[in-house]
């Protein structure tokens, strides 16, 4: 089922069949054939390097293994073992907890900041500058941005020393670093931009005349927000939520570096299995994670038709 083969069959159809009559050319590819040629490379790369590898670990998740190697088989043991281990549920629960807290905070921050940038800042130069200020840290490696919190939050870190210097606390706060708190703070630091971008994009498409009309008709600020701005920005909200949620669920590094061994993430547990070359059980747990994330994303996309809004 190679997509790159499709344009050839389409090109064989009567040329110019669907082309607008205005264009007078003897030979013309059907518009759909042109589209297929244009998206062909993308389809090829995504199928080869994304769909097939995913299918690979779907297949391998049913295989047998021992210390030496992996063997083709069809057994459900990998799944049964995974789903009967309490640790699986514990790690999903803890990841979900992180995901929801981070989602809530980034949504609040992202929406308000996007709203500020789009509707309150009047000069477009200031708007661009502020948006860039939000975006620039995103271009620094996530690893660096994660470890940047260590000297900041540590026992003798900048934050504790500032608080002590200001006389607000007497002893350094211990819960700041290597704790769930540190994990959440780091996630928010890393992912808020993923909320700001899509929401700002939706908000900037809202016609200001609508808001003025609402105001002239006597709507309060709150009513305008709830009845006009939020419904019109729901694509951005959905897109941002999907990005933040999947980033947290797929996190590998932050929990490892910032929780101080107090919690594990789904993926870091999986990475341990991969390092131990236990590919079939790792595949099974990868498959469960993929299905889980896919269901959550599908749920969010049911609420908002992202495709309709993105592709005009």
């Amino acid at each position, binding site marked *: 089922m190679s997509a790159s083969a499709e344009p050839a069959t389409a090109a064989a159809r009567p040329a110019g069949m669907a082309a607008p009559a205005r264009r007078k050319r003897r030979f013309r590819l059907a518009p759909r054939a042109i589209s*297929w040629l244009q998206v062909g490379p993308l389809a090829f*790369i995504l199928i080869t390097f994304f769909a097939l590898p995913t299918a690979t670990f779907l297949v391998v998740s049913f295989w047998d293994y021992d210390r030496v190697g992996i063997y083709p088989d069809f057994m459900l043991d990998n799944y049964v073992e995974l789903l009967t281990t309490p640790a699986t549920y514990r790690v999903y629960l803890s990841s979900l907890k992180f995901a929801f807290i981070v989602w809530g905070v980034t949504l609040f921050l992202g929406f308000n*900041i996007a709203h500020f940038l789009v509707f309150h800042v009047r000069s477009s130069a200031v708007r661009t500058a502020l948006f860039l*200020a939000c975006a620039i840290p995103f271009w*620094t490696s996530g690893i660096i941005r994660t470890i940047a919190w260590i000297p900041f939050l540590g026992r003798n870190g900048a934050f504790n020393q500032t608080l002590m210097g200001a006389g607000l606390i007497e002893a350094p706060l211990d819960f700041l670093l290597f704790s769930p708190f540190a994990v959440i703070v780091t996630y928010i*630091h890393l992912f808020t931009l993923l909320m700001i971008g899509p929401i700002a994009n939706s908000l900037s498409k809202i016609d200001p005349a609508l808001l003025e009309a609402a105001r002239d008709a006597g709507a309060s600020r709150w009513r305008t927000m709830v009845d006009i701005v939020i419904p019109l920005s729901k694509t951005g909200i959905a897109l941002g939520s999907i990005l933040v949620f999947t980033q947290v669920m797929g996190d590998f*590094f932050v929990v490892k570096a910032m929780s101080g061994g107090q919690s594990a993430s789904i993926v870091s547990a999986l990475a341990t299995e991969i390092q131990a070359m236990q590919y079939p059980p790792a595949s099974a747990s990868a498959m469960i994670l993929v299905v889980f994330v896919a269901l959550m994303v599908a749920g969010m996309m049911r609420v908002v038709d992202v495709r309709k809004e993105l592709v005009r």
Partner: protein
Amino acid sequence: MMVGGARRARDPREKRPWTFYALATLMGAFLLFLYGPMAVIYILSFQGPDGGVTFPMVGFSTTWFEEIWKPGQMANIPVAFWRSVALASIVCGITVVVAVAAGLGFRRRFPGSGVLFYLAVASLVMPSLLVGFGIGLGFRLFDWKPDLFTSALAAQLTWTLPFGLFAMFAVFNRFNRAYEEAATDLGASAFQRLRWVTLPILAPGIIGVAMGAFTLSYDEYARSTLVAGNRNTLPLEIYALISSSTSPTLFAIGTLTTAVSFLVIGGTLLFIRRMQRRRAGAARPA
């Protein structure tokens, strides 16, 4: 990923509502939150030779930067840096060509567009380590050796391509098709239209995609880690250092890589600005 200029028709002398001040405060606090910890590592990377990884600063030196270039345990950093740049350039080139072409293709509805769209969404939201895992597993089954410029390149493309595609959607959303129709009416061929009308108008957006793809690849860790073979990229090298080293060298590397990102972004933005200014200048006399 820039916010489009909102078309405000309000009197600039109008009094600011209280929400403006509330949101401005939130914005300020957020920027502090964003830059605070980064500033700490930039400062600490200039730690004196006897200082450690936390405050206080014991003098001021560039010792830790010099450490990076010295032969020794850091010897791999410069090599890894150039490897990362090479890989990021390739990723960037492929992403731009493929994503722009696909963006053009998606302007029409074609059979299979829905499937491809959701494939791109799935590829974007796939937990990153799993992409590398899947590709690595595939390579293992075929007995191929994973390498930076085969498997790691492929793993990174599954992330930069959907990003590039969605960015192109946003770019095309702001594109006025009347220009293309005008070109056709004036007798331009499809190729001339693309070369002299569509691409120049989209150029700032395309450069944005290129910049995004470059930095996404340059900073990428989780996708490449399982499939990079035995030649590490810079982020992989840094990750290896985190567990072994506790000197401010790590911060110095952080400062340097950030400086590189800034140079790339700054250069690109200047380029876009100059291009837009030149265009505005060319348009004015009419």
